């Protein structure tokens, strides 16, 4: 069996005579690719953050020139005398979302942790298709370059919002943005290939390359969530690509798929986009849920509460994600009956989400909680995901959505899910697996400072946005003061902006810690967190080929504080003591039951 043959040896013998290029640049090693993804997507995260800061400047201090004489850097087409122009503001809004969603969060989730964790946690030596894997990384910076380029072309970057609703996005006639919109489309089409090649790898690897004994219900939740996410990527991204291509045709060769003057259908774009867009939302949150489950279980030294229902919840969220897209379009003029069915399916998603939340809390219950940075981030994920989930119920209720749709309530909701949720989940993941990536611990003091300030300023920044929404402030407006009924909100906006600046600034501490610990952090050893997963059974950082010999899995990943043991953890690959004549382990089907009770 090919995968069996390839395990262990094939890499380990050829990796000695790999040159610098093959090792660090065009590497096919999943761990190196993970590192490459980590660095690039953190850079894109920074870019997205800078754009956000500029947006907040305009909202917090409307019509005032940008600080630090940024106006001198920016051309007059963007900010004459440092004062942001409306069309540039639209570009900022669009590109902030685009970079954060497509170039920061997605690669951080799937790119970094998919590559790092999947092979390690299932005991494989590498991905199923290492070269494809390398390709999937190298496409990303290319797409990113195209996206960045669009800032510098005539007419500026795309300004139709990250949702690019046609016909605003279908013809430069309405925005004055021609090339910028085209580059936006081209870039995302290119990026699609990265996601698909990556996802292809993850799915195949998880299905076909699990170590002996790694039955479906012994797979750690991080890998489970990444596996589900990979499926969503595989099936959702092509939908978007299709739509993007049609929109590109409207822009360039003058077709009329979405342009009413050719009796095209603007609403069709919204259907295509959100049919992709809602699974996309779960692509952005599911992996974080996986990381958080791992960290909470490990740091509270307790099995994940209801491992099976956690998996079931993951899967059902992924399924429901395909039939709820209409709730983004309640006010777009859809058939009211359709609206009802979409509302029903949408609220149902609250159920698996609740299951997960309560299970996380249940995991903490009667635990032995160690307050390390990863746990702090993981628990903040839970705390903030609760807010994001609950605010979702307002928007799921179609009548309330009439009022709240396209207001700052939405902005608050999605930032609670994508920053409070995904980003804190990613911080949990990075701080937890950092020692496995670099072989050194991150600095705990810096980590705690970063977490404390981030958590506080984050809430100060985003919680008041709910109130702005309830007061009726629309999203994506350049200057709310144009409306009398919004003028009373200026002080709130200024306060939010200041909090955002601190939140953004404090990330520098994280960057310092990240870089400093790489060289100076204290050596971590193979298993610094006393964890059970296979990833901790190999050296940190793992060598080419990961495992000296293929590990055998005897039990689930969360056997913490087992009553029969001195040690409060029980590695998945530790052979049972009573086992003389070779390891015995149960048949996959039975093992699922045995985990049940």
């Amino acid at each position, binding site marked *: 069996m090919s*995968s069996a043959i390839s395990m262990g040896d094939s890499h380990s013998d050829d990796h000695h005579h790999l040159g610098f290029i093959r090792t660090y640049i065009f590497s096919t090693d999943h761990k190196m690719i993970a590192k490459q993804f980590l660095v690039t997507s953190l850079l894109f995260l920074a870019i997205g953050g800078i754009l956000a800061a500029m947006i907040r400047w305009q909202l917090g201090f409307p019509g005032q020139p940008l600080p630090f004489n940024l106006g001198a850097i920016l051309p007059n087409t963007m900010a004459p005398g440092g004062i942001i122009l409306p069309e540039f503001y639209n570009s900022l809004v669009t590109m902030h979302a685009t970079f954060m969603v497509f170039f920061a969060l997605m690669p951080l989730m799937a790119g970094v942790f998919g590559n790092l964790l999947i092979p390690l946690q299932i005991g494989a030596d590498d991905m199923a298709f290492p070269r494809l894997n390398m390709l999937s990384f190298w496409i990303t910076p290319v797409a990113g370059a195209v996206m960045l380029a669009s800032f510098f072309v005539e007419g500026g970057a795309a300004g139709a919002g990250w949702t690019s609703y046609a016909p605003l996005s279908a013809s430069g006639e309405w925005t004055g943005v021609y090339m910028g919109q085209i580059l936006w489309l081209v870039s995302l089409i290119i990026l699609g290939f990265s996601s698909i090649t990556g996802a292809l790898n993850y799915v195949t690897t998880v299905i076909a390359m699990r170590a002996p004994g790694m039955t479906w219900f012994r797979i750690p939740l991080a890998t489970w969530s990444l596996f589900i996410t990979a499926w969503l990527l595989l099936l959702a991204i*092509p939908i978007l690509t299709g739509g993007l291509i049609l929109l590109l045709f409207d822009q360039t060769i*003058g077709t009329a798929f979405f342009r009413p003057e050719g*009796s095209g259908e603007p609403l069709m774009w919204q259907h295509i986009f959100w049919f992709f867009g809602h699974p996309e939302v779960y692509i952005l949150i599911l992996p974080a849920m996986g990381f958080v489950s791992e960290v909470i279980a490990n740091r509270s030294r307790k099995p994940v509460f209801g491992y099976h229902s956690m998996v079931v919840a993951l899967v059902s969220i992924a399924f429901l994600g395909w039939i709820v897209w209409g709730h983004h379009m309640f006010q777009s003029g859809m058939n009211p009956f359709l609206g009802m069915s979409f509302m029903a399916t949408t609220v149902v998603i609250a159920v698996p989400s609740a299951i997960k939340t309560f299970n996380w809390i249940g995991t903490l219950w009667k635990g032995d909680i160690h307050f390390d940075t990863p746990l702090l981030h993981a628990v903040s994920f839970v705390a903030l995901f609760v807010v994001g989930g609950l605010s979702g119920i307002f928007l799921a209720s179609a009548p309330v959505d009439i009022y709240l749709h396209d207001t700052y309530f939405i902005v608050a909701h999605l930032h609670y899910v994508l920053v409070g949720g995904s980003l804190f989940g990613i911080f949990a993941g990075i701080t937890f697996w950092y020692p496995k990536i670099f072989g050194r611990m991150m600095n705990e003091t810096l980590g705690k400072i970063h977490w404390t300030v981030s958590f506080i300023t984050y809430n100060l920044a985003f919680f008041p946005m709910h109130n702005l929404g309830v007061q009726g402030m629309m999203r994506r407006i350049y200057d709310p003061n144009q409306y009398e009924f919004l003028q009373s909100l200026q002080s709130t906006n200024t306060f939010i902006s200041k909090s955002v600046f601190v939140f953004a600034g404090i990330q520098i501490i994280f960057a310092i810690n990240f870089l400093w610990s790489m060289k100076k952090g204290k050596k971590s050893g193979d298993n610094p967190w006393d964890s059970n997963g296979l990833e901790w059974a190999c050296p940190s950082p793992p060598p080419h080929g990961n495992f000296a010999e293929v590990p055998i899995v005897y039990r689930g990943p969360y056997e913490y504080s087992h009553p029969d043991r001195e040690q409060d953890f029980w590695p998945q690959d530790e052979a049972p003591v009573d086992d003389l004549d070779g390891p015995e382990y149960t048949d996959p089907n039975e093992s699922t039951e045995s985990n049940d009770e």
Partner: protein
Amino acid sequence: MSDAGIATIDRTPEPGMGVFNKKLGMWVFLLSEVMFFTSLIGSYIILRYAHPDHFAPPGAILNVNLTAANTFLLICSSVSMVKAFAAIQQGDVKGLQYWLLATIVMGASFVGVQVYEYIELGHEGFLPGLDDYAAHAGGPLYGATFYAMTGFHGAHVSLGVLALIFVYIRALRGEYTVADHEGVEVIGLYWHFVDLVWIILFTIVYLI
């Protein structure tokens, strides 16, 4: 591989779908291809349902006979692909080369005929763009959807042909044996998929 559960010390991994990785990968990839064509065909259906006036009756503009012949050609190429695979399963390398070549030729000529068809239609003013769309050729949505769908299918066929040529060269070098002919099987899967998509497209674009 189904007996991996039994207690042995041999370190064979957990059974996957019982197929080799490349094949599994191709299956998964084809699933995502299905979604891609779903988005194109879906848009076509929506637009055609919303604006029937844009779409001329079958044969009015599109040359159904020509394309029918072309379709037949593509189906034959699928058959020859099966032949090629069967040949190498018997270890018949010559047969593999022969049938692969046949498949390549038929695939290439399919693309050729499509290009010819495009040129002809272009002369009649049947174009995708709104601004230079000829009045007699139905509405602009007709041309737009037609070129989008058939064009992307054509691109897939062309890529398939290139891949086949690659496989063919390896076959000439005799790199495929009874024991190891994964490449042939994988490209075969892709080729059959492209064929299947065309049958759907031919039906909904030309015949209905």
